[in-house]
């Protein structure tokens, strides 16, 4: 008897639970039928500017809801790979090096001026692989220094090789994206070739780069540590440093500034792309278009201490206005980075 009661009780509970679950699951669907949703994948660090600047502008223009999923570039790539037949992300914001495998696996939809009219306003060199992705911002790489121990700002990338900075220079590891700038600049300094050509001469780059070893304080993989050392005065310069990070520290009162060396600066890859086979394709394109608009670009650049990619957008105060901006051949990097990291390990070791 008891047994039977238990069974029927359980069944009833299950039915009730199932009913409740269906209702709960169905509710957001009903809601989303009313307000359309567009899901954007990006890095966790993008969350604040997406939610404060981009999303409100998109939502206002299209009457939709922007859902931002912040993780890491590689995680976004995996999300697209795993959902290849049923994508749920409409837009991805990833570093350029990660865009390349996404393109070769056919995960991205080409951006065209018909879908994204603001594409026509972008600076040269910010649309990649015939429109597979474009850059929505150019954080830039210069030399961060501590003005307390170095009252005169560095003026050249060659300065980090000066023996008077023995044990005072901090470099990013080659596994950090910002670390690549040193390699290319070393090749340029060694060969005197223009950057587009010099960045292919990695052998010359390494031969120059190893001469910096006596000057090295450390090679970091964790960026906060590098700034810690710089702010304490143990390190004098971080070559190369991301404008966004260095100027953020400066704004919070730390003894940090960033210099624009005479050889020019590098732009860091901040890419945005449309996902192939995505839901709400027109809203996805709308998101990218709004993101590239003059108003949003001006606000984004100011908030992130970066350069806008829309040529009509305002360049925030304190940003370099006439510096040479070197672009990096990311396909070449993607094809060779493993080998470079190997060589770096061997030649830069303690």
């Amino acid at each position: 008897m008891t047994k039977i009661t238990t069974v029927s009780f359980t069944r009833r509970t299950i039915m009730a639970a199932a009913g409740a679950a269906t209702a709960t699951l169905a509710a957001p669907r009903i809601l989303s039928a009313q307000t359309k949703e567009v899901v954007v994948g990006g890095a966790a660090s993008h969350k604040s500017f997406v939610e404060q600047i981009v999303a409100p502008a998109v939502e206002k223009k299209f009457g939709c809801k922007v859902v931002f999923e912040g993780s890491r570039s590689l995680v976004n790539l995996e999300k697209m790979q795993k959902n290849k037949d049923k994508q749920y992300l409409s837009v991805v914001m990833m570093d350029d090096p990660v865009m390349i495998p996404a393109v070769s696996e056919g995960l991205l939809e080409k951006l065209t001026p018909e879908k994204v009219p603001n594409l026509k306003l972008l600076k040269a060199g910010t649309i990649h692989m015939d429109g597979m992705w474009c850059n929505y911002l150019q954080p830039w790489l210069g030399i961060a220094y501590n003005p307390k121990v170095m009252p005169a700002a560095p003026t050249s990338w060659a300065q980090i090789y000066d023996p008077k900075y023995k044990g005072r220079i901090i470099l990013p590891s080659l596994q950090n994206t910002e670390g690549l700038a040193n390699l290319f600049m070393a090749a340029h300094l060694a060969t005197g070739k223009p950057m587009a050509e010099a960045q292919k001469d990695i052998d010359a780059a390494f031969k120059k780069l190893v001469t910096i070893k006596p000057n090295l304080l450390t090679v970091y993989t964790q960026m906060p540590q590098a700034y810690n050392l710089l702010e304490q005065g143990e390190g004098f310069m971080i070559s190369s440093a991301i404008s966004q990070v260095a100027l953020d520290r400066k704004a919070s009162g730390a003894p940090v500034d960033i210099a624009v060396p005479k050889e020019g600066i590098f732009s860091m890859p901040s890419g945005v792309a449309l996902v192939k086979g995505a839901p709400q394709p027109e809203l996805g394109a709308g998101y990218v278009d709004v993101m590239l608009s003059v108003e949003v670009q001006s606000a984004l650049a100011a908030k992130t201490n970066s350069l806008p990619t829309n040529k009509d957008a305002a360049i925030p105060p304190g940003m370099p206005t006439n510096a040479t901006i070197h672009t990096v051949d990311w396909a070449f990097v993607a094809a060779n980075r493993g080998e470079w990291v190997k060589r770096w390990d061997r030649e830069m070791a303690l």
Partner: protein
Amino acid sequence: MTAPAVHTTAPSPWRDPVILLALPAVIYLLVVYAYPLLWLLMKSFIGPAGPTLQPYISFMSDPFNWRVVGNTLRVAAWVTLFCFLIGYPAAFALARAGALVQIVMLVSIILPLSIGAVVKAFAWQIVLRRDGVVSQLLVGLGVWDDPQRLLFTETGLVLGAANIFLPFMILPIYSVVKLIDPRLSEAGATLGATPFYSFAHVTLPLTLPGIVSGVAFVFSMSVSMFVIPSLLIGDRFQTLATLTGRSFLLMRNEQLGSTTAVILLTLAVAIVVGSTWLARRLGGST
């Protein structure tokens, strides 16, 4: 001497229902540890065309990788030795201290464990820099002529790591020492043993189980540490653990990562098991 006694009380340990108490732990470890570990081991033995040893052959044939193995073992050995040299006497002090002092000591050993390696490594960064405490002390004592930086050197790494792992040396030794009857040494002395003789023939053999587990703990933790070297010595000093981490996190080369992980695991297990065996043999022969 004490270990065999346990076995003799339970002639067939498998039939003792007490063994069932380990079941939750066994199931937990099987699911979250043994299975993923096995999966990891397999990754490095399976190539695109079936079973292969190629990842191991190419790893071994690169002299740089031998340097990495050397770095890993050398640093772990120094850390373990350093922890032992300062932990062993500390364990005695702890075991023989009065109740209040003992509580204070235990708290000061155990509490820092809750801080986490990252915070400690950051603190060491301040201590070890050119104008840090260590440098000032050594210059003040006249050991060094000029202030020097220990940060981002192997010595700095050993100092920092030893600090972080020290409790894992002290506590196992302490738990053994507190069981030793202090009267044993006194008995030895009455029979004419010098303090050194009674230490070498009575105390040391009795503390051997504690030493063995302390060494095993510290060695296996320092051979596989990842965050501490990345903060205290940086990218210019690769160990098997940092190579493994990078293979998985940056290069997305699971096979290389699995290969280095398996090599690390094999070396660590071999050294820990080997030294335990050696210690027991030495302990047994006295």
